[in-house]
């Protein structure tokens, strides 16, 4: 049996620390700002998170591009030639074409590595929700599970990722076209905060609105507390797009009070998700009840 390498992409928002700890590598997407394309690094080599989010705070737009075929070839070949079998866990196919491109490239690359395997998994999630699945797969692999078991258990865990995110404003999401909801729901909200989940099909969609920033923090924690399962065995993830320290402390405190989890891990929302969701977005994640909600495809 070959060793298993778990790969993900720039949407996973795994910090450098988490990537090292779980021995996960990722395929780079890219950000484009003022015509300049740069790799979307989760360890922030090209710019600091503050630089990125301050550009957006000024009202300027950063666009993104999915993983290219060359990048997939590079990363697949790198690990195949080191005699790994690969499991790539990619951003929801409703948000990015990367899983599709990965699948196409995998077929091509495997011509030269006939006895190796690559499986491309649509995580149905984004941000640290996708990252959590990569960690989940890496832990299974490290525990000595077979390639097929890791793939199947990861697939089965996708709809158990519970995401509750709130955004300061909907401008970035609307501009990037990455949220699925009726136009009325996405109107000018003026202090009203939507709560976004990743639905059963992998769409980012609002499920409700609450009034005020601090109410929205309480709401996302209450929602996660209601759906998380076996909290004492797991890490609750908190991801944010450059929120201030006071807000982060406030949210952490709320999580600690309401959810008896093993620990809390805070990460930055990376360049790709950040460009789509906008500064000051923040959310909480955990494994919990199966997500069954499906937003209508027609929206």
């Amino acid at each position: 049996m070959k060793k298993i390498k778990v790969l993900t992409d720039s949407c996973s928002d795994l910090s450098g620390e988490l990537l090292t700890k779980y021995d996960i590598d990722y395929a780079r997407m890219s950000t484009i700002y003022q015509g300049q394309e740069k790799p979307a690094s989760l360890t922030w080599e090209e710019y600091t998170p503050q630089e990125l989010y301050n550009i957006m705070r000024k009202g300027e737009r950063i666009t993104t591009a999915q993983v290219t075929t060359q990048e997939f070839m590079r990363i697949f070949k790198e690990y195949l030639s080191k005699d790994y079998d690969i499991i790539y866990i990619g951003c929801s196919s409703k948000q990015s074409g990367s899983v599709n491109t990965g699948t196409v490239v995998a077929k091509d690359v495997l011509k030269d590595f006939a006895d190796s395997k690559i499986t491309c998994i649509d995580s149905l999630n984004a941000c640290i929700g996708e990252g959590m699945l990569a960690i989940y797969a890496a832990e299974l692999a490290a525990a000595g599970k077979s390639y097929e078991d890791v793939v199947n258990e990861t697939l089965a865990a996708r709809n158990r990722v519970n995401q509750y995110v709130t955004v300061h404003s909907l401008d970035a999401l609307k501009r990037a076209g990455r949220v699925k909801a009726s136009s009325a729901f996405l109107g000018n909200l003026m202090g009203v905060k939507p709560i976004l989940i990743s639905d059963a099909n992998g769409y980012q969609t609002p499920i409700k609105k609450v009034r005020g920033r601090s109410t929205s923090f309480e709401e996302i924690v209450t929602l996660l507390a209601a759906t998380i399962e076996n909290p004492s065995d797991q890490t609750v993830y908190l991801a944010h797009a450059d929120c201030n320290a006071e807000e982060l402390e406030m949210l952490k405190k709320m999580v600690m009070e309401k959810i008896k989890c093993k620990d809390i891990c805070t990460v930055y929302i990376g360049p790709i998700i950040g460009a789509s969701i906008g500064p000051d977005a923040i959310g909480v994640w955990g494994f919990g009840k199966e997500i069954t909600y499906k937003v209508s495809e027609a929206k």
Partner: protein
Amino acid sequence: MNTKFLTGDMLLEMVRSGAECLQLHCDEVNDLNVFPIPDGDTGSNMFMTIQGGANTECSVEKISDTAQSIAHNMLLSARGNSGVILSQLFAGIADGLKGLESAGISDLENACKMGVERAYSSVLTPTEGTILTVAKETSNAVCKEDFDCIEEVFEFSLDEAKKALEKTPEQLEVLKQAGVVDSGGAGLVYIIEGMQNFLTGKKSTGRSVVAAPAPAESLNVDLFTADSELGFGYCTELLIRLQNRKCNPDEFDINSLIEYLNGLGDSIVAFKDGTIVKLHVHTKTPQKVLDYCQQFGEFLKVKIENMQLQHNEVVANEQAKETERKQYAIIAVANGEGIKQELTDFGADIIIDGGQTMNPSASELIAAFDKANAQTIFVLPNNGNIILAAKQAAELYKKSDVRVIPTKNIGDCYSVLSMMDLEAGDADAIEQNMNESMVGTLTAEISKSIRSTQMDGIDVREGEYIGILGKKIVSSDTDCYDTALAALKLMEPNEHSSLIILRGKTGDEAVATDIASFVRQNYPRLEVYESFGGQNVYDFILVVN
């Protein structure tokens, strides 16, 4: 112009010509974006992809090897979803050409088929109305047809691809709504056009082929079935030339014809002009009319239309309209261009002009209910004086379930609409949510007094600013900013999360900025939203939530 076999060289040149043609139309394809913003990149992505193929260095003539190299280079340079699909289309084509020195017409047909299969299998959930459909329909049409030479194959392909492209808005709702054809499909059409241009020696031009045409109306024959009854008969129109062989045209009596037609139908119009007779009749037995008329002459033109079918179509259209009836509609009463625009953005379907000095009539309200065409209509009167009129109009109206949300001012309206969720349950639940979302909203209006008075314990002099909270005057001052702040301080700013400042027609922008910066400094937890409401009467409306 009579190519029977395609060599590797030729294929490469065709791909290069395809790339060149796409490049000419790159911006145009980019602009076929379902979002009305100039950030589409399908044209650029597809061009970069095919350009990778066009840059293939070719040393062998064997089409099999050339095709493999082109496909591989396209995969390497593939960008975006359409680019990946395009590269897979060529990968499949290359598979289809495997082992061949050169490709004949049937080889090409086979290769196209394999290309389409490969392209479809490269997408997790293939969507119709995209580049995939354009490729598939073109390939299917080509495979059914017989050709004498390869030029014919491509000429035919180009026509079919254009046809398929024109149909994409019917297959994909987002395209129809945006009024565009699919961008990836358009890119493919230009590539095929470029390939065809190489074969015919034409130069690629920037002429566009991708405007989305309006679908032609056609008779829906399914609306008159084997079991349908002919209730309305046929609309029959004849143009007859009276024949000397059959009668004396000069003595032909149009009145006896009309008398005869009276026995067969109605809506009769008939007249004679020289040797020509024109007649119109609605009858269930047009053959009798024809037989009768043919005694006197021959037909120049005959038109017989099934009016039952026409009627059924009208009914069907009305039913379709009925199903277009929305489940919910929102009607709000407001004045001020900025406010109206914002309410529309919030999701209000109809805004009736009106407010403090201009209450809409019941008939205006009812006309709006008709226009809303919804099962349930929520009405936001936004003024204490309009609530009752709205309730009366709602009671009179029987075609929809009309519910009045008793919003007393524009602040209540902002609260209701910003929190509105039309999927939160049935009409009762939505109504309840709307009523609840007004709770806690406070609205202050800043205006100029038109006379001196003493009210609510406050002395007001003519021409001074007054702050009105609810129905009470709470502040008065010669300075607008001071008046507004005095009112704001009574609005429990620490207990709320947001303040909306709606500047009226007469409101000074600098005052709005000053209020906003005061709030940011003194109530940091209150989010401030400044906006130009454009309302009459009130210089400012302050809303806290």
